[in-house]
């Protein structure tokens, strides 16, 4: 009941005409920022700090939060249409979204992404509202040992992400981990694999690799196949409508991934990217038609999209209840709030309920706006596929290059983009799956750092991973998910014999 009263209070703030305008402006700008590869929410929000300075803190946060979740919402478009993830959190969306677009179902894929994002976003706001203060305990319960176990569990998805050859999937994953090691090692300050170049000290940005291996490799692949660009079915957008059967099919994945995504988002450092991968691989494993994932399965679009939006909302839990940022984006938000004279933390619920509840209420409004804004736009956005192929390919190239250059303003990253494009092309030609590489790249560095941190705290005692219950259970689940696929055929054989 109290939550309802508070929410009403929040809506009172969020529904002020100026704030409605800010929500709209935020989600609109966010959608566009999200669609453009490379231009992520972090840099957009940093640019907005001077604008928000003079605003009421609640309005400022409403605007900036809108940009953030708007970008995650919009990022799916370029993943689906161009195989070029708009933001890091939508990489997994391209696994099935892009094949759907190629099969002439771009409209449907975009619609599913929009519905899943909306549901994921809305479910997670309910969670945020009801249990945020309690959840702050979940956020801090994860120390280095627990993170290590979670990353191990995440990495077991390599098995389900390597389509035909497990060995090739594992090779790709190892390469991903090797890339994640590049740069200054946080535990010792040692520089690894930088070859004396200052540009490699911070490692290689995840989006550079993702854009190269997915988008650029796709461009190269199409160029290589050549053939005048006659692909009639590719140019069809298809219908936006979902059949009743399809709605029933994606309802499960969306609700499961929303919950999973939200909890991943709550954990500082995990966030939308990991959430979407976990959602995707979970659905692939439990689906009866799991082998059609990666070939244009609608559940493969629904799951990561619900998860990444839920994770985005989840990442507000540590920010608003503990005052600590869980991701780069929320770090910028924290900075902006401090500049506006609000310090988020346990006291904020008491001191500035207008900010807390105003933002939560605005998120409901923002998610509805995003849905209403995006659905009618789908036919127009998808028109990009009707472009003549030479134009489309050049456009993808330009998007990727501008995006990568805009992240760091160095030409070196463009060379890496090109290099990873060629690597991606080679992987495609020789049948190496790209998803395990990307997954390992995301999880690898957190896994390594957490493991070494945990051991440093425990004085080198490996039992720390088993002594802590959360870590132990995560490791058991990881072991089970590795063993079950082996045991299943064995059981079947035994049963057949008996």
């Amino acid at each position, binding site marked *: 009941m109290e939550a309802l009263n508070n929410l009403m209070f929040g809506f009172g703030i969020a529904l002020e005409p100026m704030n409605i305008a800010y929500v709209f402006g935020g989600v609109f700008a966010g959608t566009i920022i999200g669609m453009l590869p490379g231009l992520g929410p972090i840099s957009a929000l940093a640019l907005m700090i001077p604008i928000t300075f003079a605003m009421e803190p609640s309005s400022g946060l409403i605007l900036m939060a809108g940009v953030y979740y708007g970008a995650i919402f919009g990022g799916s478009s370029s993943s689906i249409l161009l195989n070029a993830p708009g933001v890091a959190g939508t990489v997994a969306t391209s696994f099935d979204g892009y094949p759907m677009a190629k099969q002439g179902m771009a409209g449907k894929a975009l619609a599913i992404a929009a519905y899943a994002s909306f549901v994921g976003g809305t479910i997670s706001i309910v969670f945020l509202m009801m249990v945020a203060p309690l959840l702050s305990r979940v956020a*801090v319960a*994860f*120390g280095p040992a627990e993170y290590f176990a979670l990353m191990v569990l995440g990495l077991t998805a390599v098995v389900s992400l390597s389509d035909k050859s497990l060995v090739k999937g594992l090779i790709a994953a190892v390469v991903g981990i090797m890339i994640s090691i590049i740069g*200054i090692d946080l535990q010792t300050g040692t520089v690894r694999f930088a070859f004396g170049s200052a540009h490699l*000290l911070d490692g290689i940005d995840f989006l550079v690799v993702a854009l190269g291996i997915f988008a650029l490799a796709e461009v190269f692949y199409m160029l290589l196949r050549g053939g005048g660009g006659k692909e009639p079915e590719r140019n069809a957008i298809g219908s936006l409508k979902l059949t009743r059967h399809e709605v029933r099919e994606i309802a499960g994945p969306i609700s499961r991934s929303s919950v999973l995504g939200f909890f991943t988002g709550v954990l*500082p450092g995990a966030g939308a990217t990991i959430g979407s991968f976990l959602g995707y691989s979970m659905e692939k494993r439990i689906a009866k038609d799991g082998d059609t994932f990666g070939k244009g399965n609608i559940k493969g679009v629904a799951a990561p999209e619900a998860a990444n939006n839920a994770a985005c909302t989840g990442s507000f839990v*540590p920010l608003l209840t503990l005052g600590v940022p869980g991701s780069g984006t929320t770090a910028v938000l924290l900075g902006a709030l401090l500049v506006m004279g609000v310090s988020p933390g346990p006291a904020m619920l008491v001191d500035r309920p207008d900010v807390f509840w105003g933002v939560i209420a605005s998120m409901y409004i923002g998610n509805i706006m995003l849905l209403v804004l995006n659905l009618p736009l789908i036919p127009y956005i998808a028109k990009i596929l009707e472009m003549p192929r030479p134009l489309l390919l050049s456009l993808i190239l330009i998007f990727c290059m501008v995006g990568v250059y805009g992240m760091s303003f160095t030409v070196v990253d463009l060379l890496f983009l090109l290099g990873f494009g060629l690597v991606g092309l080679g992987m495609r030609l020789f049948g190496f799956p790209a998803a395990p590489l990307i997954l390992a790249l995301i999880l690898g560095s957190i896994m390594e750092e957490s493991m070494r941190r945990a051991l440093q705290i425990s004085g080198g005692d490996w039992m720390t991973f088993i002594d802590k219950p959360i870590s132990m259970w995560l490791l058991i689940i990881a072991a089970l998910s590795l063993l079950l696929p082996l045991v299943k055929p064995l059981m079947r054989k035994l049963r057949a014999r008996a």
Partner: protein
Amino acid sequence: MTAKFTSRGLTAIVLPLAALTGLAGTAQADDWTPTRSIEFIAPANPGGGWDTLVRTTSRVIQQEGLADQNFAAINVPGGGGAVAWAQIAGDSGNPHKLFATSPPIILVPLAGTSRYDHTDFTPIARLITDYSIVLVPMDSEYQDLNDLFDAMRESPSMSVGGGSAPGSMDHIAIAGVASAAGLEASGVNYIAFSGGGEAMTNLMGGHVEAVITGAGEAAGQLGPDSQLRALGVSSPERMGGPLADVPTYQEQGIDYTFDIWRGVMGTPDMPAEAVAYYEDLFAQMLETEGWQEARDQLGWLDAYQNSEEFGAFLDAQKEEFSGVLTELGLIR
């Protein structure tokens, strides 16, 4: 007819222009002013301390109308600053390029990951300072800094978290105070997290025993409902606001202070007139109301030093840091 008209029109334009350039010419002789917009570089991603400093000062200078030219905030992330420094070092003498700086300009080169150090650049001014603060969870048995250090003497594996790599700011800050308290600097089991926020959640979850971080960053965490307790702050005198109750290290009998200063530097061999111009500009900025408001909100303290003082201060800091790093075995 037309020709005549044009030439008349031209003289009409040229005359005032000549007068203007003439004026500017004489002004340049003793009093340099920027002729185009100034690139103000934050050698890191948006959101961190350098970035906040760059954006806040640019905004205040603009709002208060202190400079005719625009200050453009630019992020050049990479290598803890090394990428930006390498870029700026190659732009010798350019009077239109500045960057935000803090202890890493000394620590990163000492760690061997930057070819350039503070002596390669022109000090402009030190602006502000923050201090470091030692935190424990509310339910911790340690009531003051000496309790904590006694316990660390007993069990050397006790973990202290910080938000940066070994040999960088947080590590030096805790190793320095531990050493002043009679412990061995290298005996501190320092756990490096990838940011102050991550260190803080690990402290709240009880995964590490204590955390060292910036006092400004911690201020928002300390209040009536706080889950954390501050054991000591590295300032020479007590700080204000929510930190008024936190005793200094010196009050607890440990003779040690640590400044997390931030300032502005320019390109190598920047002309002296330009340095003088910026020195004055930043000194003026510190006096404005807009600055004082922003400064208080961010929990910063003014700590102005002009170019010469700042240069000498940087040299002294390098001495001090090398000493601690040698003790830690991080430089040989």
